[in-house]
């Protein structure tokens, strides 16, 4: 299953139906616009909790010295920073993103923090990863998959470049099954979030898109089924913060 709607030539951009190539440009526009204020907004929007979600992702990655890791849609490099420490001098982390502004902010930030030597930066689309088959021990995509136009294609592409036995971790907003939490969360993301976006980043539209894209993203079970369809086995997921966020794991057979 893909995120394409009935008409094969249409996909979602938030709540709007758009042509697939238009979505790519529109998503690019959003991330060019938010790149400089992305880190501050991330902390504000999640009240810092995104750090814990990412921390749990690192724990589940089982990455160790010498591993090859791909952090796709890696943006400003939060996960890459941690992986760089774990893989050591003998390993390698590739921070990849489709958007050059996000990649630039990420690269500058990591270099400023002295993270050099085992990190490479690659501008790439998750749907067609420019790496040979069986390259990585672990691939992570954090808060990125919902922005990808053809998610099924992206999952297949990730499976291809993973080594057999390697794991994919997808950290993404998901669905809560607590109606009260859903209501609070809706109010927060559709009213407060764009307002914060306007205040801090001077851009409410981009943050409205982010809120809408979260609602359009497949729920836990659907995403797990998509991972299986793409070729992953032993798939599981962990709900965090009442299901607002879920971490999916799959292994390449």
């Amino acid at each position, binding site marked *: 299953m893909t995120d394409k709607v009935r008409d094969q030539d249409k996909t979602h951009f938030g709540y709007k139906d758009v042509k697939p190539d238009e979505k790519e440009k529109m998503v690019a526009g959003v991330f060019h616009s938010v790149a400089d204020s992305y880190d501050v907004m991330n902390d504000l929007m999640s009240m810092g*909790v995104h750090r*814990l979600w990412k*921390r*749990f992702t690192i*724990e*589940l990655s089982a990455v160790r*010295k010498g591993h090859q890791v791909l952090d796709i849609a890696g943006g400003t490099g939060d996960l890459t920073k941690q992986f760089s*420490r774990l893989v050591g001098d003998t390993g390698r982390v590739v921070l990849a993103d489709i958007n050059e502004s996000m990649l630039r902010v990420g690269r500058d930030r990591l270099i400023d923090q002295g993270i050099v030597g085992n990190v490479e930066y690659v501008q790439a689309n998750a749907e067609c990863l420019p790496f040979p088959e069986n390259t990585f021990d672990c691939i992570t995509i954090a808060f990125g998959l919902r922005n990808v136009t053809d998610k099924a294609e992206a999952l297949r592409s990730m499976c291809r470049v993973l080594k057999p036995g390697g794991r994919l971790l997808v950290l993404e907003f998901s669905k809560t099954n607590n109606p009260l939490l859903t209501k609070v969360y809706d109010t927060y993301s559709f009213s407060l979030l764009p307002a914060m976006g306007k205040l801090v980043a001077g851009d409410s539209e981009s943050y409205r898109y982010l809120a809408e894209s979260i609602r359009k993203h497949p729920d836990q079970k659907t995403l797990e089924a998509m991972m299986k369809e793409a070729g992953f086995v032993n798939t599981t997921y962990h709900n*965090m913060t009442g299901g607002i966020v879920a971490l999916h794991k799959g292994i390449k057979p």
Partner: protein
Amino acid sequence: MMKTAFLAFLETRINQLLKLDPVTAEALKFLDGSVIHFVCLQPDFDCYVFLDSLGVRCAGWHEGSVDATLQGPLSRFIALAADRTSSWGAIKGLDVSGDQAVLASLESVHQKMELDWEGLICEQVGPVAGHSLAEGLRLIGSTLSGSGQTLSSHAAIYLEDALKVVPCEPEVNAFNREVDSLSKAVDRLSQRLSKS
């Protein structure tokens, strides 16, 4: 999530303290790459501590092998923390197993540790907040050793209280800057008054 939050907090604190104890930090470098599994049986709680050249990393989840395991009720871990002289084997109720070389290095680091952690916390965050934090840690220790309650509920209460009293670094810096500029302003004012 609560456990992840607690471990994140613990890791930050340990690394802050290590920065202030270069002897221990240096000694730990010899254990670079080691993984220590702490298993608390009463209450039920376990965590993995990864040692590397940058300090320690605490995690609740680990799929690889471990180099050493320390297992026992919380009261035994508290006894261990308080006793810098006995060998670990002498602490009754604490099960210590794993790579003997790693264990011997850990034991020696523990015995030589210069860390007066309570004093250092006070130095960092001021006497009132520092003592509250130390008090909080002791309280967790004593309540947990006698009860069967889960660590997460205690940790939640503790974190809530501790975070109320412990200002974060930017807050402390901002406060110091404000006091500085206020005292400069008072100096300037009193100079002007004495001239007039």
